[in-house]
């Protein structure tokens, strides 16, 4: 089975600023991948590289085993819903579907028509008059109806209110399950991704901090609280993600392959949000550390 997304030392520079550096990830087939990180971390850059909208400055990327956007057939296998879900404001909903039908050999007209009807969108309505949520749904319909193997969504829910947000993600999950496609979506909010993702990539300051299966990440990260202790006195198989100390107490978030039985510690499991925040916080303490890879 080929990896959906495979990058090796991938980097992209804008002028003198690196938007993405040393990005090496393997994303297996059939996952819903959440790409999470603060604003400006390089999420959009990575997604645009994967969709073939951008050329890498260095390194290599393959999507579904091919260079992104190398040829029309590769484009047909990848759906991309860009940030702010752009649509042609002068064209009607029906004309957008016609556009999709004209430009995609694998277009599923029945799927598109059924989704539009179910969402209650008026085909004669101009896309410029749609609400943000409706526009996002239209863009998602265009992405889905070309029947891609991988669907990439860049902050698809960022501009939606909580209700529309939930509906959109729910619709996305239904479609994913129905058509068996892989999904790569980004958000700066973990709560958006928590319910839907089974694979997580955390991106901070243009670098990948951690990448892996959500369950595995949750099973191998712990919060340790106990008497103050220096990090170099921790066992070698426990990698420190974050550390906080008071005069008498230490709190560590560590990654360990095995359960921790040290009686000196109070051991807690982490929620996904805590885990992501621990990695995001590494920027603040200036501890770049090695990029952690999940062993499979």
């Amino acid at each position, binding site marked *: 089975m080929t990896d959906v997304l495979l990058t090796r030392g991938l980097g992209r520079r804008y002028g003198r600023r690196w938007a993405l550096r040393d990005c090496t990830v393997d994303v297996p087939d059939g996952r819903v991948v959440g790409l999470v990180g603060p604003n400006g971390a390089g999420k959009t850059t990575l997604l645009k590289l994967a969709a073939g909208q951008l050329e890498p400055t260095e390194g290599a990327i393959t999507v579904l085993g091919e260079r992104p956007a190398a*040829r029309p057939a590769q*484009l*047909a296998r*990848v759906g991309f819903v*860009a940030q702010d879900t752009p649509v042609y404001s002068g064209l009607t909903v029906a004309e957008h579907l016609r556009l999709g039908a004209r430009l995609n050999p694998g277009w599923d007209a029945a799927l598109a028509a059924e989704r539009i009807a179910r969402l209650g969108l008026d085909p004669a309505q101009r896309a410029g008059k749609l609400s943000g949520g409706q526009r996002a749904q239209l863009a998602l319909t*265009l992405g889905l109806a*070309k029947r891609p193997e991988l669907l990439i969504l860049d902050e698809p829910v960022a501009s939606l209110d909580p209700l529309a947000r939930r509906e959109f993600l729910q619709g996305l999950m239904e479609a994913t399950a129905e058509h068996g496609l892989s999904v790569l979506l980004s958000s700066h909010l973990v709560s958006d991704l928590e319910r839907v993702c089974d694979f997580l990539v955390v991106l901070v300051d243009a670098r990948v901090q951690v990448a892996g299966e959500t369950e595995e990440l949750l099973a191998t990260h712990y919060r340790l609280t106990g008497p103050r202790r220096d990090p170099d006195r921790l066992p070698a198989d426990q990698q420190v993600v974050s550390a906080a100390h008071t005069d008498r107490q230490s709190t560590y978030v560590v990654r360990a392959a095995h359960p921790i039985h040290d009686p000196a510690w109070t051991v807690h499991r982490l929620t996904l949000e805590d885990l992501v925040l621990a990695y995001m916080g590494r920027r603040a303490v200036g501890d770049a550390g090695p990029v952690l890879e999940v062993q499979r």
Partner: protein
Amino acid sequence: MTWLTWRQLRGSVVGTAAALVALAAALVLTGPGLAAEYSAGVAACTPVPDTCDRFFDRFFSAHELPFVAVSLLVLLLPALVGLFWGAPLIARELEAGTHLLVWNQSITRTRWLAVKLAITGLAAMVAAYLCGLVVTWWSFPLDMSAPDDLALMAPLVFGARGIAPVGYAVLAFVLGVTVGMLVRRALPAMAITLAVFFALQLAVPLLVRPHLMTPVTATFELSTENVAGFGAEDAGSSVGLRLQSAVPGDAGAWVLSSRVLDPSGRVVAETGEDAPVPVSMTSGPCAPQNGFASCIVEVNDLGFRQQATYHPLDRFWPFQWMETGIYAALALALTGFCFRWVRRRLS
């Protein structure tokens, strides 16, 4: 892609077509009358005494306003094409982010650009060609009667006749597309396109067109065809000779310079200057009561001559083809740049 391009262009094409049809209808309705008036006038006039020149002047001044208006329209059309079809073509997509939508359909962006350029560019060419054609046809009698500064080869009129407007329109269009791609915003792109295109349209007639072929330099005797008039100088003890921008025997030539040579062959007046000629204006052949013609004969007999540098009228079509070729080559180079840019740099 053809459908999408047409759908995006439809509104403005229909509008342009309607305007062109209205223009063509007006010209087709008035054209035959104009031609009939011209042929009747030419048939009725006689070279000796010269009543034809008087007919031409009368005929032309009676229709000067529509003549200038339609010529300006043909000159303006390419600029409008660059402004409203060229500049927003890519810039508006980049501005709205819709390029990200269309680039993810199952076509390469090279093909996307090719179809957009081909269809819109073709529409621009057709519009410019038809507009130039109908105006060239309509104004033929007026071009035949126009004074030298509005004759066919005159810089402003030349660009509004024949096939040159097609070259201008293609270049203005591709220029607009290129600027839009680089600037990424429609409104600034339109402003820059307009400025650059106007600068080009000024520079080419002034700096490039005169050198497309080596101009003819020749010396002519003075006659009513090249003398504009005389003025009194030094309280009537001498006359100031002023030449027209015309050469004898080559009506409609594009005169680049027209200078006065004295009997020894020295240049005594540059283009537009008065040449002092030592002839009394109070008595003799140049006295006012003896008329214009006898003074010309007298000054010519003294040995004063016109030295003119010019392009004859029969170079109109070679110039048209050359200039259209130059603009087409420029447009092609910009198109090549656009394709490289859309593949490598744009995102």
